[in-house]
């Protein structure tokens, strides 16, 4: 199979999964007790009023018609109106998405920047103090609930030392970019942005930092024991070249795949991190819409979350296939 065909096949597969995601989200409403009319209608609504609401929302139609209409509208980028806010769901969801993406990316950067060097050091200095330190740190990291870590960070850095903001997103990364060309002072804006994002990014990123450290360490140990590394050593290649060019590169390929699959954990973690830091992202929107039974908003958010997961995994597989052509023929 050629690389192009592989990408096409994987994309079509991804599209199928997205269709499944949409279907599950649509079906969720029908395995749930209580009619969505209850979320909209006043408690003392007469049967006529309820009927009118049902007609307006299309709930009196047969299921397959409702499903067909839902899919059809979705293809046109229409996710309906919020029951509670009277706003378009698409606007609401995509208005919140950038905050979550920013948080998730910041957390990933913190995680990757710390974990890969730590994992490599841990593997190359096995059974030395740094290895024990890294092992303990990563064990703690995968075992700590991120929402609790967030509260502890608030306790130490915001309440005791008062250096970070603990709630909201006063400055976003777009403001920082604008300050490069605009009249706002760049460093001031950057610091203000860091004051908001640092604690949530650490709270969310720690688990992944720990996970990647563990994966990198065991992957490196595995690679360093292989024949090609010994051959390279025998040939007299410098240690750093062997470690970073050969062993690390082969270690990172499987690490990337695991990370793609862990994206769900990252988004799930973002939901709860957002709740701790009142971060105005998709996670807080999901919780609000569940508590207020705002169906269309919940459906829209779940579809966007599921679709992002599929998209990232298709991308990861494509990169993987590009780096390791054997995958294409698998």
């Amino acid at each position: 199979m050629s690389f192009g065909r592989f990408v096409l096949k994987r994309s079509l597969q991804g599209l199928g999964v997205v269709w499944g995601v949409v279907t599950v989200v649509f079906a969720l409403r029908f395995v749930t007790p209580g009619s969505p009319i209850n979320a909209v209608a006043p408690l003392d609504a007469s049967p006529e009023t309820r009927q009118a609401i049902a007609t307006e929302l299309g709930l009196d139609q047969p299921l397959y018609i409702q499903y067909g209409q839902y899919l059809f509208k979705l293809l046109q980028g229409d996710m309906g109106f919020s029951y509670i806010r009277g706003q378009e769901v698409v606007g609401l969801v995509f208005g919140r998405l950038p905050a979550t993406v920013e948080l998730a990316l910041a957390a990933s950067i913190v995680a990757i920047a710390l974990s890969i060097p730590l994992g490599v050091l841990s593997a190359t200095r096995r059974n030395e103090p740094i290895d024990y330190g890294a092992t303990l740190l990563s064990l703690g990291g995968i075992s700590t609930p991120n929402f609790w870590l967030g509260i502890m960070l608030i306790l130490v850095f915001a309440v005791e030392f008062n250096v970070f903001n603990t709630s909201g997103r006063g400055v976003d990364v777009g403001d920082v970019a604008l300050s490069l060309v605009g009249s706002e002072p760049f460093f001031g804006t950057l610091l203000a942005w860091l004051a908001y994002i640092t604690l949530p990014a650490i709270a969310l990123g720690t688990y992944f930092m720990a996970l990647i450290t563990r994966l990198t360490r065991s992957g490196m140990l595995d690679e360093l024991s292989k024949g090609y590394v010994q051959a390279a050593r025998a040939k007299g290649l410098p240690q750093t070249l062997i470690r970073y060019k050969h062993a690390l590169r082969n270690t990172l390929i499987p690490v990337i795949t695991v990370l793609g699959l862990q994206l769900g954990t990252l988004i799930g973690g973002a939901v709860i991190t957002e709740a701790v830091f009142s971060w105005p992202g998709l996670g807080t929107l999901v919780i609000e819409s569940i508590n207020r039974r705002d169906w269309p908003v919940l459906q829209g958010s779940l579809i966007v979350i599921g679709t992002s997961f599929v998209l990232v995994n298709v991308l990861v597989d494509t990169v993987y296939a590009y780096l390791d052509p054997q995958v294409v023929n698998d």
Partner: protein
Amino acid sequence: MVSARVIRNLKKEFRNSALAKIGLVLVISIILVATFAPFVATHDPTAQQLDQSQLPPVGFSETAERTSSQMVDGEIQTVTETVEIEPDPDHVFGTDSLGRDMFSRIVYGARTSLAVGVLGTLLAAAVGVPVGLLAGYHRGTVDDALMRVADVSLAFPSLVLAVALIGLWGRAAVDIPDPFVVAGLAPEMPESFVLPITVVIVVGLVNWVWFARVARGEALSLRGQEYVKASRALGASDNAIILRHVLPNAITPIIVLGTVQVAAIILLESSLSFLGFSGTTLSWGFDIAQGRDYVSSGQWWISSIPGFAIMLSVIGINLLGDWLRDALDPGIEGEGGAA
């Protein structure tokens, strides 16, 4: 199956690993604490004593500003005063905002965490393992369908799906009478244990897919083995082969996964209780949530201590999981390395 070789490996790995020993000690302690909670706890974890609220843990004293409403000349006035609060040796971990004993709440919280972790994992395995084995053994349409369902299932983060399902289905709980209290051995403790049953069902449903994937992988590689082919040639039915030959040989990776899943589900349960999506108020996540409002006013222990309890339990289970994986792995080598 669990052979003499496996047990030998387990023992050897255990002797060589300090971490495995720590893990086992932690896990056994938590099981004991959870089981004998009525004897370990010093107070009824739900009993409120408002005159003893917000006491710091032993070893810490706390200056706090307390506002109270007082009737002065027939008018209600808010009075703020700074008071020095000394710990009470009767409450080692202090008390929460309603004067409930934190130590006893931690002890009883272990029951919730462990019960949800173990029952949720068993449910996930009970659904996932048969589905995975059947799909991997038969391949074809069943297998394709399973893999697509798994793909869709993985696209939703566990926490998000669990929150959505619990939010929509409600937060049901069942009261299970505490045998020790019923027998009159610990009369001052709560009579029943509240099991958040919706949470158990939802975490099981959300996590079955991991078991299905592992079981499928094992069945796929085992179906081509000589002894499976031989049984088939001898006329054994597919179900009998799966039960007698495939399952016993697939059990090791399933056990390793199960251990890791208990830890993952304990974390998931604490997240759900933290967000208010649980059916019980005796949970570490719930206490972290209620203590959160007091972090900025100085009562750090209400949120901190339950977090350490979660961390220690999950560390213990993860260490146990690492030990099992390291000890059992030689048996499953040759079918691709561990992830």
